[in-house]
């Protein structure tokens, strides 16, 4: 080992040196991404590079579905048609009732002088693939910034809320599912209007209501809908059903487990909801830490005060020019 001959060919730096170089590069990227989110443009470009492969990857499923559809029998189609027709009938009745209820609620709101509920626009999208990441629960949909998807928009399917758009690339966007441990959604118990926040339960595929007092008025089978007080999710969308409640006298909070209403891990088509009407802007968050840091020393404050008129003057001269 010690008496290795001098290399005949130039091979560049030693592997260990290269490893250290690339490892430190990766670590720098990781810190930039996790702490500061500086890397969104790089990510967007790279995502565009792999987009064709992703599209191709979903092709076999479409193909198989096509083949399956081709061989589905006449009887099946007839049955399905009948079922769909019955459903349309039921739905149309619901729709009529919804229209009258909406008109009535608008009238009542006018009487109360409350603001109109914002209109919600729905963009249909198809789930391309699930992110290859067992640590989080994300899917990618085939609508992106080019189709007008906004980050933060709620995503729902025909039975309820699926998740939220967390990142928008030009041609596709990333949706964090409700079951992601980092995802929270404000909900309301349909039966009595009790408000709560549901957090994702991770790999169990459930949701959990945290910080519910042990004596909270909630039962198995209660349906949870969005409360709409966060300004992100429209009010009244089904979210989950309570399946299990553990009340322990020793614990301050009850453990409430819920099952998502929507097919969070099934289904291929979703709706991206976006609000047409603008809500009033949220008041600024007060950040005590930052304020304290700003006027840490009196000298800094005096300096700031001295700079202010100078700035104002500069602006005025700019305008004059």
């Amino acid at each position, binding site marked *: 080992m010690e008496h290795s001959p001098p290399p005949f060919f130039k091979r560049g730096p030693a592997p*260990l040196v290269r490893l250290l170089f690339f490892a430190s590069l990766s670590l720098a990227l990781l810190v930039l991404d996790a702490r500061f989110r500086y890397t969104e443009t790089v990510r967007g470009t790279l995502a565009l590079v*792999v987009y064709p*492969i992703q599209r191709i990857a979903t092709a076999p499923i479409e193909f198989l579905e096509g083949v399956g559809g081709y061989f589905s029998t006449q009887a099946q189609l007839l049955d399905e048609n009948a079922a769909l027709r019955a459903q349309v009938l039921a739905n149309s009745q619901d729709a009529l009732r919804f229209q009258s209820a909406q008109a009535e609620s608008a009238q009542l709101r006018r009487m109360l002088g409350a603001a109109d509920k914002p209109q919600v626009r729905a963009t249909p999208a198809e789930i391309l693939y699930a992110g290859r990441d067992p640590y989080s629960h994300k899917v990618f949909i085939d609508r992106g910034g080019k189709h007008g998807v906004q980050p933060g928009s709620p995503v729902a399917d025909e039975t309820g809320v699926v998740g939220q758009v967390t990142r928008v690339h030009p041609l596709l966007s990333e949706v964090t599912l409700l079951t992601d441990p980092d995802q929270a959604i404000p909900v309301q118990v349909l039966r009595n209007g009790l408000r709560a926040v549901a957090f994702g339960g991770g790999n169990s595929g459930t949701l959990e209501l945290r910080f519910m007092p042990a004596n909270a008025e909630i039962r198995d089978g209660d349906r949870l809908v969005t409360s709409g007080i966060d300004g992100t999710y429209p009010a009244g969308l089904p979210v989950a059903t309570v399946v299990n409640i553990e009340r322990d006298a020793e614990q301050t909070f009850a453990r409430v487990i819920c099952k998502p209403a929507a097919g969070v891990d099934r289904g291929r088509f979703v709706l991206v909801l976006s609000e047409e009407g603008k809500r009033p802007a949220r008041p600024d968050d007060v950040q005590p830490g930052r304020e304290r840091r700003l006027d840490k020393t009196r000298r800094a404050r005096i300096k700031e005060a001295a700079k202010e008129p100078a700035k104002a003057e500069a602006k005025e001269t700019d305008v004059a020019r």
Partner: protein
Amino acid sequence: MSQDRSILVPARASTIVASFALALFLDFLPWRDLRLVPDFVALVLAFWCVRQPRLVGLGIAWALGLVSDAGNGVLLGQHALAYSVLAFLAVWMSRRILWFGPGQQALHVAVMLLLAQGVVLLVRLAAGDQFPGWPIIVGPLAGAALWPMLTWLLLLPQRRPPREQTI
């Protein structure tokens, strides 16, 4: 190379690129439980690092890791780091690994893939994620189990027809 005595045609760059594209494609397929599915990109990367350490090395590994990170919407750099470590191990061990038969090669690969998975796990735990459960080690083991088949498949373009060999 005790098992495989046939002389191989040098690997073409097009084969390597195609195999990586195919591996990315397999990774992007909508799998049901990702913890049980091997990371095909890591597997193919390990293969080329072992077979062609002069052609495929840390730079390619790092770039592939970035692409994988962006495509999967995970922390940018986590796979880049893991693949760099994997490529380093594979290049470093390539001489040794090629002396063994397919089964023992797979054992070496299992260790390398597990280490790469461990790097990802450490990064995610440091970033504040939860431990996703022990099934997470099934993926690398499944990948190692695929190694003999992968070797056979990826060496196909490099094999000569038997008639040519007798000359």
